[in-house]
């Protein structure tokens, strides 16, 4: 918050009662403003963090306590929910699968989307605008409409029930998103910089990789985060396309903890804690890029 500070009095030796009053009034307003700001921020932080806190403490509670005593702190701390998850349910296997799927989708999407977005932004060819729009429509098509056609396609390609098949399917969503997002970032890079590079001997690909992509790093970070998060959290397609236990991703394995109509909250929350950890790390590392990106966008208009 920017509040105009009181100017120094031109004659400090001469006491000026009204000016002092104005100073204290402004000072009080400043303190009040800060207090309200911090209060609102604290409430916002509590609202955001409380579900995470609840998830974590529930993962350390005994089943009876989870249902019977909705307390803010476990009466008895237990690691049993994590033991069930890791020892009986082999949760590290779906975690590994999720990491493979999400990482592969992210890297591939970044590569393909960069090339696609660069092509749409920099080259002139018939249908370029239409392709750009169709890409967006592809991304906006609801997953629930596509799961049956995709399962037919995967079966024909002999890619059903495998994490490689999941990677291919997720790319059909992440590449359009990445391409659409990166178009905006690439347009913001002055064409003259590339031309200058090419005059200095860079090829077209060289200009892309050595000039455009480094200058679009925040955009790449944003695409990477959205893509990784999307692939990491996706459930519906994994549910339909993956059958074998050894191929399940983390959300699918968590979903399989719920059998019949009884919810094992302890192991579910333990699984939620473990599976949200990679995302938390990713966001923590990439938040600098994201913030830079948002700021950059605001000044570029």
């Amino acid at each position, binding site marked *: 918050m920017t509040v105009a500070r009181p100017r120094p009095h031109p004659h400090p030796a001469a006491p000026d009662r009204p000016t002092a009053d104005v100073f204290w009034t402004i000072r009080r307003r400043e303190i009040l403003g800060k207090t309200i700001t911090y209060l609102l921020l604290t409430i916002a932080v509590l609202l955001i963090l409380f579900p995470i806190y609840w998830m974590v403490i529930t993962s350390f509670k005994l089943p*009876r306590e989870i249902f019977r005593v909705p307390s803010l702190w476990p009466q008895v701390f237990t690691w049993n929910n994590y033991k069930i998850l890791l020892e009986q349910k082999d949760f590290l296997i779906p975690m590994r699968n999720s990491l493979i799927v999400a990482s592969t989708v992210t890297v591939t999407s970044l590569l393909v989307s960069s090339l696609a977005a660069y092509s749409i932004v920099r080259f002139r060819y018939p249908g370029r605008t239409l392709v750009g729009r169709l890409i967006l429509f592809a991304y906006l098509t609801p997953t629930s409409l596509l799961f*049956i056609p995709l399962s037919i396609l995967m*079966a024909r390609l002999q890619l059903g029930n495998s994490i490689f098949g999941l990677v291919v399917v997720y790319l059909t969503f992440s590449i359009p998103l990445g391409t659409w997002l990166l178009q905006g970032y690439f347009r913001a890079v002055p064409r003259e910089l590339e031309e200058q590079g090419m005059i200095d001997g860079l090829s077209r690909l060289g200009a892309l990789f050595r000039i455009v992509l480094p200058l679009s790093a925040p955009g790449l970070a944003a695409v990477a985060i959205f893509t990784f998060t999307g692939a990491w959290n996706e459930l519906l397609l994994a549910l*339909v396309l993956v059958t074998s236990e050894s191929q399940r991703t983390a959300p699918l394995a968590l*979903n399989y903890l719920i*059998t*019949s109509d009884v919810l094992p909250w302890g192991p579910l929350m333990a699984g939620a804690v473990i599976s949200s950890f990679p995302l938390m790390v990713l966001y923590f590392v990439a938040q600098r890029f994201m913030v830079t990106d948002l700021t950059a966008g605001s000044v570029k208009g």
Partner: protein
Amino acid sequence: MTTRYRLTRRALLAGTAAGVGLGLARPGIAQPAALRGTTLTYWGGLIFSDAANKLLVDTINRWGQANGVRTDVVMINQNETVQKVSAAVASNTMPDAFDLNLDLLIVLARQNLFAPVDDLYEKIGRAQGGWLPAIDGATTTARGPEGRAGVPFGASGNMLLRRDDVLAKAGFANPPTTWQELVTQAAAVNKPPLFGLGLALSNVGDGNVQVSALQSFGGRIADDTGRTVAIKSEATREYLRWVKDAWDRKIFPPGVSTWDGAGDNNSYLAGQSAFIANTGSVGIAAKTQDPELFAGTKYSSLPGGPKGVVSPLTIQYRAIPKASKNVAGARELIEHLSQPAFMNAYFENAIYGPVLADQPKLKAFDGSSAILSGLLDLARRGTAPGAPDVYNVAYADAWNNFVIPKMVQRVVIDNWDFDRAMDDAQRSTQAIYDKYR
């Protein structure tokens, strides 16, 4: 499959017993050489009991080894069977055999997706004293164009779970036998945070207990032709009066009109409801998670109304898709899985009641388990699915559209008068039935 399961003492004993039993029975089982070298994919229904799931997987794999069949057993979460099967039908990747419930069986059988199993059904029935009447009736109703579409292996349904520890102190030693008595008992122990009546009134399967209540008051979804909806009636009005009275007494826990499928379970395990209607999964959960609650819980059949008790069975089937590449192997396997030794061990761990007349004599149903005794009672006294209504595809569709819970919501939440709520339900349900004319 690379699954690792926790081997409990009970599961070990059950598995050993089943293995020994099946080993002894093996000389009597035909082992066609034609099956050798074939592959068989089986989708088992993943249920709440890990021990029962493991038993099924192990038994199928052992059968495969004994017959030279490569088996691939995948346990499918029953909550997601519809999505998995829909995608598999569309992409022609159906397994060679799989578990499913009657609701899905009747829909898929109508599309002629299953290999007929009449001879297998009759053979298994003959060997074990015949099929229980309600099971036989439902299976015949669900036949496809070419014959019966599945072989039943377990029956379940809703039982009334009650907090006997609380009710006994209030002077209610016996379970309520009528819906009115249920409200009386529930109101007597209704002291929030413990509420009397944890019955779902929401758009989930549990909410359809209200259909049973409606039918026991004499109400019907449709007439005897199974084509014309008959919700609006004096009997339905009586039922609505009952449910409105219970609502006005404030004996329902908060949120019953929006509960999800686990709402009643969570409420009971949280000590928030004195009564719930449940298949028994809550009982099994309480056994390990809250032994005190388990000890204080008793089970009985659903209460009755002026027209008696309506307690529909939910039947589980094993079926063979027409697209199966190993129909012969699937038939052999289904017959193998119907043997008493395996089924006894399975019943001991699962939450299913018997389907064959000889199965109540199995050790599992000797009365030592309150839940299994309740399921046995349900299998014997339970009503056929849909009864007294005609159980057809339109009924199944109306059931899955929760037409009765929605009607109740109009009355208790939106404060519609009974006539308006009945007219609305009548109209929307007739639209569903008209789709299948």
